[in-house]
């Protein structure tokens, strides 16, 4: 199983960070190997929202399914494994804390691939590494996007 636990400090208020987490359309920019995302129902995060993600894995495209398990605005977002797709287990938990004028993001990611989906010959070590790389990049990109300032 791939596991990542990180704490990230973002120089932006919680509402700015949450505004990005609340919009599934940012997912392809947050995760470098995610190509597109479809959500049901459409729109911002809501508990029960199902997400179908097309991701790149080497020269292949794969499908991953997740759903929103918990969403407390400007506080907590939890995603878990949905039905089918490349994950047998997935959990992403993000908790936000106000720190001065900024935001501390406590993040944990866990995932395990589905052998039924990928088959017996896939390198789990390789996929775990890709997953952890994407999780790290997610946080870096979340910080970068949150800290963007308007031109005027």
């Amino acid at each position, binding site marked *: 199983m791939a596991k990542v636990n990180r704490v990230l400090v973002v120089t932006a208020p919680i509402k700015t960070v949450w505004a990005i987490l609340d919009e599934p359309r940012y997912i392809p920019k947050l995760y470098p190997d995610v190509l597109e995302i479809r959500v049901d129902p459409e729109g911002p995060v809501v508990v029960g929202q199902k997400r179908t993600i097309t991701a*790149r894995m080497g020269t*292949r495209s794969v499908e991953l399914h997740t759903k929103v398990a918990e969403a407390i605005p400007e506080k907590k977002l939890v995603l878990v494994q949905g039905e089918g797709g490349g994950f047998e287990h997935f959990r992403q938990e993000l908790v936000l804390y106000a720190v001065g004028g900024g935001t501390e993001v406590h993040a944990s990611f866990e995932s395990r691939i589905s052998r039924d989906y990928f088959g017996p010959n896939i390198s789990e070590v390789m996929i775990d590494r890709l997953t952890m790389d994407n999780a790290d990049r997610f946080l870096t990109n979340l910080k970068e996007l949150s800290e*963007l300032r308007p031109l005027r």
Partner: protein
Amino acid sequence: MTRIESVVEIEAPVSAVWDILTDTSYIVKLFRDAVSVTADPPGRSVLGQKYHLTGKAGRRRVEFFLEVVELVPQSTVVTRQRPGGLFKTFMQKTVLEDKAGRTRAHTVFDYELALGYMGKVLNVVLVERLVRDNLTAYSHTLKEFSELLPLPAEGTGKGAT
């Protein structure tokens, strides 16, 4: 006016390339520094569709306003600048040509930056370079995504690499 032109040979049928080219959700992946896009109407590219793109230039957020002005299915997409945003003028034309199951994609970008929009905040030389890098990489990214092969259908569990 700056022109950036590229031709790529893609190991995928025209339909696969067209699917990505006209899927507005791919815009943020095709242009490296695009952050988000909203399309009106939402969904696949249609004639008259208007885009509002947000991108990043260094630590600043910049905006682009575009419109689809020509659309020939499985062949040609032309997008032009609408008033406002980082471009004073902008045109993208991508033409797809079937080459016996493969695709030849010819893309031309013509643009001019709006110096008044950038003001004194953004370094013109830096922005020029960022824009050039994004547009230069576009065709190769389109090729890369078009050539991705889906993993075999769920349940077969065969041949994953």
